[in-house]
């Protein structure tokens, strides 16, 4: 089961998306506040964060930057009304996993969530292997 944090200032959009994603066996947490999203992402381990690009309080790119600063392995998919090429490039440079335009097809979004989840698992596994290698080298076994 993928653990997803959904961040968007459109409350109704969050409610429907959460219901639909939960019906697809995902564990979904929602928030309309980017600042709250930063706290939640620090308290819990999410497989994927789905983030709106334009929100009050904090710009989506700014939120992405903060999320990646705190957890570089976190998979963030940006969901936006209008993505300019410039914003898209900027988002990718900041480490976004993907970018989708609203209205998005849930099938495509679900695929991207699953891909992001797999990517996270690979990264976690890689880190664990590195840690073991490091311990082995250090102890000289």
């Amino acid at each position: 089961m993928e653990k997803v944090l959904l961040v968007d200032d459109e409350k109704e959009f969050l409610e429907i998306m959460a219901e639909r994603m939960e019906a697809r066996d995902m564990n979904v947490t929602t928030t309309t506040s980017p600042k709250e999203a930063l706290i939640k992402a620090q308290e819990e381990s999410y497989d994927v964060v789905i983030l709106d690009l334009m929100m009050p309080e904090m710009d989506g790119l700014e939120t992405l930057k903060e999320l990646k600063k705190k957890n570089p392995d976190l998979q963030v998919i940006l969901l936006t009304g209008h993505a300019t090429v410039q914003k898209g490039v900027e988002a990718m440079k900041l480490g976004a996993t993907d970018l989708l335009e609203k209205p998005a097809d849930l099938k495509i979004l679900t695929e991207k969530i699953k891909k992001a989840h797999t990517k996270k698992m690979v990264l976690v596994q890689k880190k664990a292997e590195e840690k073991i290698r490091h311990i082995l080298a250090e102890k000289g076994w």
Partner: protein
Amino acid sequence: MDRQLDTGIETGLQFFGKMTASISHEIKNVMAIINESAGLLEDYSLMAEKGMPIDPERLRVVSDRVANQIRRANGITKNLNSLAHSVDEFQKSVDIKETLELAVGLTGRFADMRSVILDFQPPSDFPAVITSPFHLLNLIWQVLDFAMDASGAGKRVELTFEAGPTSVKIRFTGIEALTNVPETVFPTAKEAALLHMLGATIHQDAEKGEINLVLPKDVRQQVTAES
């Protein structure tokens, strides 16, 4: 003079672009909710096909959501239509209350993005003004844009207007951080060009956190601004 006209035209195009981009973004948000609502109904039908009971209340919630979004989209497209028609005639008689309502409607999303509340309190008397509706909308936006940034901790900008014999004064209050803004910062060349086009003047009262925009009732006549 030509430079001022160029600035006026340039700022007009920028204003039009900014507003239409914002409107299209809002429409996309509405479409996304309607799209997901349709998807949710599809999910419900698949569940029903599998023999799972669907609570009619859940269907009612979806139906209400779609109706709400249609109302929202109707308001957005109405504003877009009014903005588009504001360039039909360079000068015409406009209802100042309707113009301010439209300006507030167009600015709503920008206010939300900055967590600022826009509060428009029209008086009971609505004067008609002969002016350039598009340039007036642009100038009101420029003032609101500045006022929202300078609204300080209160994060509330109030608008009202009052009519004099030959002019109308639009009052923007709640600009708490106006005392911190040097007079050279606002109005800029953009606003100066629009003020010139509209024969209007701007007066700032930093102590009161207030900006007054004084418009002639008839742009075609020589006006002495009443403050």
